[in-house]
């Protein structure tokens, strides 16, 4: 067998590196630079230092957008971490035709988010199905403003996200449940643990890894929410644009011939940093053992040093 040339491995990774640099790193660095400029399309650019970031705090739309995104995260993470697990437990059972139910629950994942959001718009609009139903049963006199009230709109969008995400995360949990042996459950049952007890003490710890993964994925996705809110509000973000998410704000700020590209880049950068926070938390939680070990090691080394020092002094 001929030996490969030294550069062969580099050659093999080159396309990937070029791709990452061209379509991820370069635009990212560009955004960082733009965030410190007053860039607008077709106009000369000048550096403005931190002015864009100062402007953020005076801009009520930014405050609304951050609030919307954070609320989205706070509501979506617990819902999309636990509901899919319960759903997975439900379809985990080996009963006839369970494949049909699994497919059904997975169905919303395949559907296009835009199409689904348009269907939800039909449901929740002033003359939509839900309002017509409420009116028919005499529960309301005039249509409920599902899509023109800030919190109801955000609520509808969250409902859509959760409904659409359930199936996807259910599959993740199904895989994990498959690896969870029956022995533990049997042992726990022998010890007299009830269903609830076994869920919390056997199932949940057993899927802890995937659960972490799911919560991080949900967290990042919720932080960057766009499609659901955009389609449900027809791109307006509700009255006053108060239900805009951060990505919607970036989009509306940066687009067009008069877009404020520099300012939009600054918001992007803030969003990037905000997305790092949950990732860091999970990183710490996931590597707790490593961190604990490291800390213990440091303590031991320090103790050892102290011992040597006292010995030397003696």
């Amino acid at each position, binding site marked *: 067998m001929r030996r490969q040339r030294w550069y062969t491995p580099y050659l093999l990774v080159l396309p990937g590196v070029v791709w990452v640099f061209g379509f991820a790193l370069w635009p990212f660095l560009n955004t960082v630079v733009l965030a410190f400029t007053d860039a607008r399309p*077709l106009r000369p650019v000048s550096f403005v230092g931190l002015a864009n970031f100062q402007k953020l705090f005076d801009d009520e739309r930014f405050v609304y957008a951050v609030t919307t995104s954070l609320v989205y995260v706070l509501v979506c993470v617990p819902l999309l971490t636990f509901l899919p697990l319960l759903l997975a437990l439900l379809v985990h059972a080996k009963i006839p035709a369970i494949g049909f139910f699994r497919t059904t629950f997975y169905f919303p994942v395949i559907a296009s988010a835009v199409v689904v959001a348009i269907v939800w718009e039909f449901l929740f609009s002033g003359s939509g199905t839900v309002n017509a139903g409420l009116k028919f049963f005499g529960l309301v006199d*005039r249509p409920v403003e599902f*899509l*023109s009230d800030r919190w109801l709109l955000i609520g509808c969008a969250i409902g859509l996200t959760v409904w659409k995400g359930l199936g996807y995360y259910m599959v993740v949990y199904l895989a994990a449940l498959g690896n969870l042996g029956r022995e533990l459950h049997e042992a726990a049952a022998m010890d007299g643990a009830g269903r609830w007890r076994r869920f919390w003490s056997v199932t949940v710890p057993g899927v802890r890894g995937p659960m972490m993964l799911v919560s991080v994925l949900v967290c990042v996705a919720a932080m960057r929410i766009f499609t659901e809110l955009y389609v449900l*509000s027809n791109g*307006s973000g509700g*009255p006053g644009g108060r239900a805009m998410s951060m990505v919607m704000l970036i989009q509306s700020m940066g*687009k*067009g*011939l008069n877009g404020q590209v520099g300012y939009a880049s600054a918001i992007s950068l803030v969003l990037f940093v905000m997305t790092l926070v949950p990732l860091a938390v999970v990183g710490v939680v996931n590597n707790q053992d490593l961190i604990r070990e490291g800390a213990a090691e440091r303590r031991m080394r320090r103790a050892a040093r102290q011992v040597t020092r006292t010995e030397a002094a003696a």
Partner: protein
Amino acid sequence: MTVRRIIAAAAVASTALALAACTGGGTEAQSAPSGSGGDITGDITFQTWSLKNDKFTPYFEAVVAAFEKAHPGAKVNWIDQPAEGYEDKVLQQAESGELPDVVNLPPEYAYSLASAGQLTDLKSASKVLGDYVDGGVAAYTYDGLDGSYGFPWYLGTELNYWNKSLLAKGGVTEAPKTFQDALDAAEKLAAQGIQTISDVPSPKSLQSMVTDGGGTQEVFKDGKFVFNTPQAEAIIERYAALYKEGAISPEALANAGTANANVNNFNKGTVAWTTAGPNYIDKDVAVNAPTLLPDVEVTHGFGTPPLFVQGISVSSKSKNAATAMAFAEFVTNTENQIAFVKLAAGFYPGTKAANSDASAFAETAQNPEQQVATDLAASQMNDARMLGAPQYTEAMETYAKQQIALAVKGEISAKEALDKSVEYAQQNLG
């Protein structure tokens, strides 16, 4: 409702009749180009906005063929962009130095591009600019910029459309003729649980609403945004009251800042009133909501009705400037404009000569109410004028509509909404 939406709607409604009618494109290119120097040869690109379809494609192909025949050696590459995202497309082209040589631009986009030195000043480069209608040329002439930056191509306005059966249910026997009547009718209908309005006022539409009551309303004057007038405030306050009474659909607020929401609601038969372009009956109602057709009644636009203009601009970066100028003049000459508006019912050509005889381009209305609309549009074209201002961008309009939506909902006061919108516009000027 923007013209491109109307055209997009028109695009959907392409018919065999139109195909048969469009033989006018292949006229001889007799007029010599007025562009100063250079031979009319080489390749140029011509870009239209959402006009490549069964109806308009044969027309443009014929125009291009006629031009190429008259100028051997010249080649026109016709491209078309989809209705959605045109602004971003044009921006992308301009930034990468690939703006088409001859390009269809609405006045606001042309203003941004002209400010950035991307467009040729037609006042100095073309000798035929005087042939075009003054209002149209004025739309492409901007404060603070010398010259004019587009040949007026086709012009339109906006009319009021009413759902007669909904009006009757609310006890209103006659379609409102003034804005005040419209609001009173809305109040009456609300008492019967019927919604009338599905749009919130914007600084642009407020211009028509205020002038209907005899007032004056400007958006931008002497370097300042001035649309926060007491009259505008009063109208928004009335809207807020009407909203409480149920005269305004919740969609009006949900969709504040998005085009066409009112037309869609009107088509669904959920509201009694909408504004739309002059070809709305034949091109939209007849196609998308035919059951509604017998109930629709059209009346003239309120106050100073809006004037919509589309124009043809020439890139200042064109490699074959003489060819580009010659083609821009050719595609917008009287003959070709008449042939074009024959296909786009309810719109008006951009040259003075073409407008001298309206019967030359009047398309036969397919529905009786369309004839009424066409006549009304013709009668109000002289009063129509561009609303807003070149400096007043879509982003400002969107922001203002959203604030006004909040005011209509009662979360902030009308004054607060208008003041905030003026402040926002002022901050983003330039």
